[in-house]
């Protein structure tokens, strides 16, 4: 039986795992955007926070994913359910590209433009929303794109702690020494990553000022 026949026969399960996978990636990316972009803005305003915040996000990124899932297991509310735990871990991983790209994007806005705005009497809020964020948007979306693509891959490991997703097939296939089953998880995950990369790349181009 080849991989296509396998997926056709188990299409309900493939769909269910794909939706679980999307759920893990989607929720964690949204959380990371909600936390990471404000943190990135924050460190452009208070440079003293730059090192501690970017440093922490960097350190999280160096922890092997399987170990991070393990570290979070004893956490009170989070550890009670595998999907919460997986979402938290994926959120933490996605933070670095988001914080860094927001910071770099805003810092990269032409200084003359910011100074002209400030000199004309724009408030910090007006500068941020009307000038800095719109001009940094392309770079910020590039961060979301990197974070999402990494997340799609990492989320397969969440199956190791029982959080579901397409990793289920990969781990099952590994245990059964059955390549077709591994591919039934890997192919949809790869397609999902490509799709996310393509659509966010398109958005990035659309929103870049030049």
């Amino acid at each position, binding site marked *: 039986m080849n991989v296509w026949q396998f997926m056709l026969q188990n299409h309900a399960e493939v769909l269910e795992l794909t939706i679980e996978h999307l759920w893990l990636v989607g929720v964690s990316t949204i959380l990371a955007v909600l936390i990471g972009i404000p943190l990135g803005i924050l460190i452009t305003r208070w440079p003293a926070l730059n090192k501690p915040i970017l440093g922490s996000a960097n350190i999280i990124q160096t922890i092997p994913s399987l170990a991070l899932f393990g570290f979070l297991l004893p956490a009170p509310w989070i550890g009670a359910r595998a999907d919460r735990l997986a979402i938290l871990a994926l959120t933490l991983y996605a933070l670095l590209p988001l914080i860094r790209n927001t910071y770099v994007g805003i810092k990269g806005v032409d200084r*003359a433009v910011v*100074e*002209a705005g400030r000199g004309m*009497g724009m408030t910090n809020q007006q500068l941020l929303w009307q000038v800095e964020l719109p001009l940094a948007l392309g770079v910020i979306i590039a961060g979301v794109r990197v974070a999402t693509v990494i997340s799609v891959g990492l989320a397969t490991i969440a199956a190791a702690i029982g959080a579901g997703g397409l990793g289920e097939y990969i781990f099952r296939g590994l245990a059964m020494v059955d390549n077709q089953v591994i591919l039934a998880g890997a192919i949809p995950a790869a397609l999902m990553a490509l799709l996310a990369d393509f659509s966010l790349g398109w958005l990035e181009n659309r929103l870049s*000022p*030049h």
Partner: protein
Amino acid sequence: MSDANHPAIQFRNVSYRVNHTRELLHNLNLEIKSGETLVLLGRSGSGKTTTLKLINHLLAPSDGDILVNGRSTRDWDVIQLRRGIGYVIQDVGLFPHFTIARNIGLIPKIENWPEARIQSRTQELLRLVGLDSDIAARHPRELSGGQRQRVGVARALAADPPILLMDEPFGALDPITRAELQREFLGLQQRLRKTVVFVTHDLREALLLGTRIALLEAGCLITVLTPDDFVQSSEPLIAAYVNAFETSAPRGTP
């Protein structure tokens, strides 16, 4: 907001230091009259731009006070202060993601002018600085350097501020465009009578545009003179500046 009894801008014993050590400006005392064009002249690092940025409080003085319309910049609400002062810089700093119309109408929009008034004001300003009205829908990257600088001037004039700060506005332009914009500036200033503080290192530009010229050297004000007195002065630093220019200027130019 201007008052004939007060100078528009007044520096009182103003010093500016960076990190408590390096002094960029030393004990500056200077009065800028309402409606005059005061040129701050000096070479790089003499403190011209620092002086300018102290007026709209982009920099805060280490010592002393700057009075704008009789009130210290420390006591002004800084946003209100800046809205009453037009600011034009060499790099122009147009917002690249806004159309020309939106660039010019930014402060009126922030100040909640009605849309129709913003539009008519934008058209009026484009005419004033000698640009076609069909340029309004374009973006800054589609304009030439000279056109961009004209838009920069129009944007600074949008909310009709009584004071205009210009930091080497024509410095990056080719000589022909620069001469053209200088002439237009003179014509504009004759009509508008703004209080203008104009930074340049170009003596010819200073002599052409200034009502008075303030020469700065290493953070100190050397003197303030009218253009006529300036070229005739025997003060060594002024004479040195004038001489340096005469020898560097191509033959045949005054």
